[in-house]
């Protein structure tokens, strides 16, 4: 039925099967959109956030997906700027994932703020010293860039490319894609960093506060590096997952290994810097603000195990694994390592957003807990469902993996 839209030479499941696959996601999206409406029209009282836990699941989600979506900028950077041609095999998928992550994050952010209608005030009256301003500007611009990068992928659809003007526009745009790759890299660099800076500047939260290097706290740099480190891992994971679900070979094994290698080399740098940063924080930053670092880990929920899990188990271990060629060549271990690396970042963002708020600062404050409401979870799931839908449609009708046709006939 929809064969005219499916790229030549690749096989896709029947439209009926496809319908079965997307309907649960569509349902999830509808429920999520209902929750979003509740939040927009009734206000944020629909969430379980409060004055003490003013950031919750959503901000955590934003920070996490933006870190994971970093694959888009980093792959683009490697492919178009550093000319690693092998990565052409995943660039389209990376762009779509990036677009999903960023648009999802921006969408959630619009629900998260109390006055979405006034969101543009940030552009009109920016406080350029706020990390959030930097984040807002960069993410908006970068989302624009991602959307532009997504356009050629769409225009390449078998049906659409028959329209001459579309085809020519795609061609012309693609010729200049290196500009977008460069701009995207620049923007990502800053907003990944300022997302880290978001917490690193909080002098009132000694758990998160870090000294500044130049005008940015160290978390600024750690976030950039960690995002660059897990971006390729996440692309690797998603490609493997799509491959598993569809039962198709999508990219050559060398591409997987290359992604793993890139991830591993950056991750090891990140882990080292993170370890140094943590040591400085334990021995200098935290005590100078009147808090012994140990005091942050005395609560039952968040012991030092979380630090171990973040830095060693999900940092050092996957980095070493990915750097070892033998392990990399074994697909199962490659996937495990990539999964660990992504988990490490998921934990890191959790620690920065949730644990920071849960820990008491005032001498008479209590340790705080927070459980998101169903509306928050549903909104979160809506983003997941939205991503699934966009990706499923893109995978079905667009060429996300150029090697697929070739690998299929082998």
């Amino acid at each position, binding site marked *: 039925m929809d064969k005219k839209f499916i790229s030549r030479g690749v096989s896709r499941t029947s439209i009926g099967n496809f319908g079965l696959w997307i309907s649960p996601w569509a349902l999830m999206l509808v429920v999520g959109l209902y929750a979003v409406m509740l939040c927009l029209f009734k206000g944020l009282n629909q969430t379980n956030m409060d004055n003490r836990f003013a950031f919750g699941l959503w901000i955590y989600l934003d920070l996490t997906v933006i870190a994971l979506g970093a694959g888009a900028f980093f792959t683009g950077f490697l492919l178009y700027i550093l000319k690693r041609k092998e990565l052409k095999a995943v660039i389209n998928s990376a762009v779509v994932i990036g677009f999903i992550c960023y648009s999802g994050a921006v969408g959630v952010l619009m629900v998260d703020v109390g*006055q979405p*209608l*006034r969101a543009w*005030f940030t552009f009109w009256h920016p406080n350029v010293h706020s990390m959030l301003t930097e984040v807002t500007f960069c993410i908006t611009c970068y989302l624009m860039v991602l959307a532009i990068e997504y356009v050629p992928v769409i225009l390449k659809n078998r049906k659409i490319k028959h329209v001459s003007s579309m085809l020519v526009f795609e061609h012309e745009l693609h010729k200049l894609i290196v500009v977008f790759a460069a701009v995207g890299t620049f923007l990502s660099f800053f907003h990944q960093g300022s997302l880290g800076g978001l917490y690193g500047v909080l002098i009132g939260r000694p758990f998160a506060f870090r000294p500044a290097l130049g005008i940015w706290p160290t978390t600024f740099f750690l976030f950039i590096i960690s995002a660059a480190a897990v971006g390729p891992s996440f692309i690797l994971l998603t490609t493997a997952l799509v491959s598993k679900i569809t039962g198709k070979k999508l990219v050559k094994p060398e591409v997987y290994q290359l992604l793993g290698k890139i991830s591993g080399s950056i991750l090891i740098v990140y882990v080292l810097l993170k370890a140094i940063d943590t040591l400085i924080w334990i021995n200098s930053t935290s005590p100078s603000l009147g808090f012994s670092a140990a005091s942050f880990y005395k609560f039952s929920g968040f012991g030092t195990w979380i630090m171990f899990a973040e830095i060693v188990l999900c940092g050092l271990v996957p980095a070493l694994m990915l750097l070892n060629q033998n392990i990399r060549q074994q697909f199962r271990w490659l996937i495990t390592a990539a999964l660990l690396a992504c988990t490490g970042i998921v934990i890191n963002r959790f620690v920065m957003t949730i644990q920071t708020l849960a820990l008491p600062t005032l001498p008479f404050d209590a340790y705080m807990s927070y459980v998101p409401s169903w509306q928050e979870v549903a909104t979160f799931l809506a983003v997941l469902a939205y991503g699934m839908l966009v990706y499923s449609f893109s995978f079905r009708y667009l060429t996300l993996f150029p090697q697929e046709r070739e690998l299929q006939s082998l």
Partner: protein
Amino acid sequence: MNITRREILRFVGGSALGILLTPVPWKALDDSAIWTQNWPWIPEPVRGESSYKLTSCTLCSASCGLRARCIGNQPVSLSGISAHPLNSGALCSFGIIAHHLRYHPARLSRPCRISGKAGASGSTAMAFDELLLEVAAAINDASASSQTVAIVDGRPGRTASHLFQQFAAGLPNGKYITAGESSLEILGSMFEKPPGPLAYDLDNSKMILSFGVPLLDRWGTPARTARYLQKKSEGKQRIIQVETLQSRTAGMADRWIPIRPGTEAAFALGIAHVILKDKLFRDASKDIAEFETMIAAYPPSAVAEICGVSQDFIRDTAREFSANRPSVAVIDGSANSRHALAAVMALNILVGNVGRKGGVVVHREIPSPVALSKNKMSPISTLDAIPDHSIRAMLIDESLSGSSLPDGLLQKKLTGNGILVSLSPFVTERPFCTQYVIPSPVFLESLAELTGQADRESSSLSLSAPLVPEPAGMVDPIQFIQRLGSAAGVMNIDSGTTEELLKKRMTAIYSEKRGSIFNASNGQTSELKGLTSPDELWNVLFAGGCWMDSPETVRSLPAVRLTSVSTADRIKNIPPESNQLLLLPCAEDVIYRNSEISPLMSKVGQESGLRPSGCKVYLQTATGDALGLTDGCRVMLQTKKGSMQAEVRLDPSMMPDVAAAYSALNQQNIISLCEMNQDASLQPTPVKIQKV
């Protein structure tokens, strides 16, 4: 002409450029931005001219002078008058937001009948005349069947009170009942004949021995804390707080003596024992020897055991109390049994604090034109003195809040078909009887008169002038009793409007030429004698002023009977069985006076946890741990009388094995779980706590 898509696109393109070259997008953006900043459904404060008006607070008998900031006629905030002799600029947290009472959601707009006997209470709005007919029928029925008609007055001494007394006197079985400070009532009853209106003279006392009285936070004048802190720094006053919980008063007092719940009487008797043994007493009563034998069972060692304190505390307290005269022992009437009140009052008698400046003083009667009129006035009696199940119709004036009577006691006194007629600004339901509620104006709406001062050397009188018009259909206490009187055929009630009667009282006070007068507009206090006319007195009081009686000169008191103090066994500590705790019902104003507070009170209850809100039970951390309870968990409280759910708060300041419980607004009251004494006071009750 042939219009193709291309042409339409060109047209759209031109339009797009055109619209960008007009102010439309920019102006629309700007205006909509302004719109988002001013949502039309958010109330906007009313603009108007600002002025300050002076008046007196009617919420309790402390009669604080206050200054209302008004926009137009509308009071928007209240503050104390700093030069005012009664409150020195301080207001309590109820008073500071009293201008909102007018808008309370529970405000009553029409007279209604609430029949709540069957559990499912229903409220029917009715015309005032119709209501009067039904009530008059019940009153006539009572007269015919020689059942009692009682009128209960929480604020005796007002002109309205005197009319109430006339009303009671006009009926064959009419009783005029006051619900004043019950500890002082008990003290009065210990004299062979009533010595006159009694009051604590706390300001002049060198030492206050308080048995759980919230002296420093909500009892009497809100200025007390500041005065005490001042005197404390000058070494002129000490407070010893004897209380189970670490209340605010306990926290600020010079010494906090924590005792087991319900052992106040034992503690007092222990002190009496030391005073007698060590010959520390001043006023030897006739029956002192008899009293000494009576309390022989309360040596400090035994009392220390009962109360859970060290013997030294008892001895030291006894010595301090008798050495630092003038001293005064006070006890909270609403939370304790009559036995405990009597035991504590005996201390005042023993040390010779009664009739003495800085102790318990006798107030002079405030002149009243009604008292002088030809119409007879019924004598004052107390609810205790009325036999159970004998009141057919009970009239309660709740138009001005006062100390409220425990519902349990009211229920006990009413006959099976008894009705309760209440004059109140709010719907207050009492599920045990048919109730008629007549709407009365609230504070700032009507002319009201404030008398009393149970915590000062002398009594005072102030007026609360209406600042805002009252809603239609409101009835004030004087109108109420006059109209009810005429409906029930009671003709001996003085006539005249509220204003006329009050003006007459001014004339009466003026003619006595005693006391002093505070003028709020200039902050000066002068002798009443200096005024030129009763009208001037009226004008001064009408504008937030205050008349203070001169103190009664010391006169000989009637003989006293110490042996009226009971040493019944119930004052012993009840050790709870294993896995049971002792339930301590906590009487916070927030709970009792739900309808009499501004909705804004939710700021300190619901939103800041400063005052308990909702059903909460406070436990010592160790006790909670032992029971496996965590802070914030929900539990079921179970006593012999029933059960209810509550939220646990672990609090290290709590006494072990005690569960202090607060009940939520508009929900089952914690009191329903407690066992009651004969006098409707609450007993500490064993309670089982289980996690749900």
